[in-house]
């Protein structure tokens, strides 16, 4: 069965290749068949391999396609490594990807770049699969850059509008900062291990370094830099809200479900190194905690439906980082999976809403859509409930609760992380339901022009089902105590040790979390349904704070001041290229000599004779002096 492993990334690649080469000549019906079909087949293969993998209870599947590079001891192969961690990732990527492809078939039907869109999307799926299946860090980096490229291409998909191109460049350049750090980290890893094979590094690292080693710390922080850039965490989070310029399915697939969680995957994949550098772990946790709170507050103030979701994504990935930071590896991956389901659902539903309202993004101009778009309302409600982690019925509750519990009770946890996470949960609940109430309740402000058809509804329903049911595979100790997911991952990711004195109060934590989520819903209802004037009052009384949060805590302005403007200033100084001045000088010198010598070429015969005379005098004088 493992011989088929290469098919998983190859199928989307083949789809992309066909669409790129023949896309303009294919009929409109064939494009989604190839685009979605290739990913669908890939998902099917994933299912087969996954079934085989679990039923044979293998530790890992390995498949080497070919030797990629072999030079001076660096010999990464084009090889795939399948273990429980990457199985979960490829499962999410192919399935969510497939659903989003189906959705896109209808969503993008009227777009001129129909084939181009599917080609990019297929290429993205292929790159992402290579990223998570790679058995060495070079191939991982290849996939890493591949998804970055596709992200750039898809954010700027509607390139005729300048600000979309700007957003695409911003995303590309900001993530490049992190990627550079990661590349340096890879160089250092190679210097230390003389290999970039992930399994070999994981096996050798504990022998090479003691816990708390400086080298491990530096490498871990550099890898973290890459993860932070890709996953839009503090301080490189500014690109994600602008990345919403891309089509909604892109936001759902790339900027919510898969690519932005590549950072989480990277840290989980190299967790051995992080475990050897406790300070780096702490930094991961702090970044996660700070990001989830900051992004949560920023989400509270946005008007644009998709920007709320973007900040919410940043915030949720913050939870994953927090989980990674306290060593709750499987909890982070669990939250990744659940988040992929419900965030993709929310983005797709938001896309449907936006499409139904003539590309209206402003939530304050929406409203009353509950009756008009019932399917979307109900699926959105399920997604929102899952995001807000409403207790018992939603998958989000189980994944987030696990993180909350482990930030407090895990051996690396502390009360501050827990309080931050709790605050984040409260804010999440408020902005989620603010979004829901503004969009679907109240008076109808914009006329619905387009009711989504089956192609869009089915993926929404499937994702809504997953957002609810997927949570039940991992139940907390206090009730059910089901650990299918973490058991499945345990060969790759070690289980977190729980401090014993907290065991008895787990139910209390769950109660608090549930209470916080429900009170958030109540607050949102208070402000936006029962007394809408309250929110306006609040907004005007804290206008500055509102503005500050609305701009994403002013990070864009700060970076603009710190980096963009000095750079533009330097560029404008160097507009005429300082290095060229040297060569200009040579030219000027040559011109000067030319002028001097051409002055002697006056064309007047007597001048020349005069020259001869002076020369004669000089020669004679010389002869006289010497002789």
């Amino acid at each position, binding site marked *: 069965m493992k011989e088929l492993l290469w098919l998983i990334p190859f199928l989307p690649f083949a789809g992309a290749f066909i669409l790129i080469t023949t896309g303009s000549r294919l009929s409109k019906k064939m494009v989604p068949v190839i685009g979605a079909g290739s990913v669908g087949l890939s998902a099917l293969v994933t299912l087969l391999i996954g079934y085989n993998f679990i039923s044979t209870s293998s530790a890992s599947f390995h498949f080497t396609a070919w030797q990629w590079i072999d030079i001076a001891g660096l010999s990464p192969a084009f090889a795939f490594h399948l273990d429980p961690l990457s199985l979960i990732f490829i499962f999410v990527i192919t399935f969510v990807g497939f659903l989003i492809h189906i959705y896109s078939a209808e969503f993008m039907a009227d777009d001129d770049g129909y084939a181009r869109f599917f080609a990019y999307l297929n290429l993205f799926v292929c790159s992402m699969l290579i990223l998570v299946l790679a058995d060495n860090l070079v191939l991982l980096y290849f996939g890493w850059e591949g998804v970055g490229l596709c992200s750039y291409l898809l954010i700027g998909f509607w390139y005729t509008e300048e600000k979309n191109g700007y957003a695409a460049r911003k995303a590309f350049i900001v993530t490049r900062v992190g990627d550079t750090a990661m590349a340096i980290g890879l160089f250092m890893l190679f210097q230390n291990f003389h290999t970039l094979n992930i399994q070999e590094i994981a096996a050798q690292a504990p022998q090479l370094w003691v816990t708390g080693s400086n080298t491990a710390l530096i490498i871990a922080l550099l890898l973290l830099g890459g993860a932070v850039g890709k996953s839009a965490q503090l301080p490189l989070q500014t690109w994600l809200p602008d990345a919403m310029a891309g089509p909604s399915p892109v936001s759902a697939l790339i900027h919510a479900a898969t690519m932005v969680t590549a950072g989480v995957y990277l840290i989980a994949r190299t967790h051995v190194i992080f475990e050897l550098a406790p300070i780096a772990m702490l930094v991961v946790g702090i970044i996660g905690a700070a990001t989830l709170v900051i992004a949560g507050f920023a989400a509270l103030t946005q008007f644009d439906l998709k920007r709320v979701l973007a900040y919410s994504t940043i915030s949720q990935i913050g939870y994953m980082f927090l989980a990674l930071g306290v060593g709750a590896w499987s909890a982070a991956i669990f939250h990744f999976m659940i988040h992929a389901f419900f965030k993709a659902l929310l983005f797709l539903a938001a896309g449907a809403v936006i499409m139904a309202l003539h590309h209206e993004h402003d939530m304050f101009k929406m409203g009353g859509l509950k009756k008009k778009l019932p399917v979307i309302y109900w699926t959105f409600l399920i997604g929102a409930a899952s995001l807000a982690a409403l207790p018992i019925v939603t998958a989000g509750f189980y994944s987030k609760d696990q993180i909350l519990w482990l930030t407090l009770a895990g051996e690396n946890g502390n009360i501050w992380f827990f309080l931050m996470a709790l605050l984040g949960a409260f804010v999440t609940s408020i902005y989620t339901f603010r979004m829901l109430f503004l969009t679907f309740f109240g008076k109808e402000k914009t006329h619905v022009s387009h009711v989504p058809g089956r192609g869009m509804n089915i993926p929404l329903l499937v994702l809504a089902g997953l957002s609810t049911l997927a949570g039940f595979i991992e139940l907390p100790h206090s009730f059910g105590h089901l650990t299918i997911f973490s058991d499945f991952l345990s060969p790759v990711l070690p289980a977190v040790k729980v401090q014993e004195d907290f065991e008895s109060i787990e139910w209390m934590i769950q109660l608090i979390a549930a209470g916080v989520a429900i009170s958030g819903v109540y607050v949102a209802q208070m402000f936006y349904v029962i007394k809408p004037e309250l929110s306006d009052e609040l907004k005007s009384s804290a206008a500055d704070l509102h503005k500050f949060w609305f701009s994403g805590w002013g990070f864009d302005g700060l970076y603009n001041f710190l980096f963009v403007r000095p750079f533009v200033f330097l560029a404008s100084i160097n507009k005429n290229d300082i290095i060229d001045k040297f060569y200009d000088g040579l030219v000027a010198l040559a011109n000067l000599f030319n002028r001097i010598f051409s002055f002697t070429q006056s064309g007047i015969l*007597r001048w020349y004779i*005069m020259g001869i*005379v*002076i020369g*004669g*005098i000089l020669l*004679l*004088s010389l002869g*006289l002096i010497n002789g």
Partner: protein
Amino acid sequence: MQITFYIAGAIAVLSTMMVITRFNIIHALLYLVVSFLALATVFFILGAPFAAALEIIIYAGAIVVLIIFVIMMLNLKAEAVDEEKRWLTPQVWIGPAILSIILLGELIYIISSMETTGSIAQMVDAKAVGKSLYGEYILGVELSGMLLMAGIVGAYHLGRQKKKVIHRFLEDVEE
């Protein structure tokens, strides 16, 4: 003998000075003929009668006549003299004159500091010259013949009054 040499030399120098300072070119040419005749005398005194004859025939005769022919062909008017006056201003000639005087001073210094061994001035007649010319210098004579030929062809070619043919690229530049 010596007196005649100095008188002839003085006449040559004075008439040459008159040549280079005249405004009217015909006057200048007359002084030039005088200068050539004086030099011919000097040649004779120095014992070179053949050279003296050639000086008179070719320089004072042929070359001056040639120049006069050209002047006649150019058909210069009285304005030409005024033009010469305008052209020959002190600021034009002072610089070159100073340079030339320096050169002259150096020449005089070199010549007068020469060590000379005494020898008697002997007449070298046309026969000796002719023998030498068609003996050891026969190659030089042939080369001179070719030079004269080239001079004739060149003068004919350059002196021809042909219709002005302008290259098509230069048509716009010319008036």
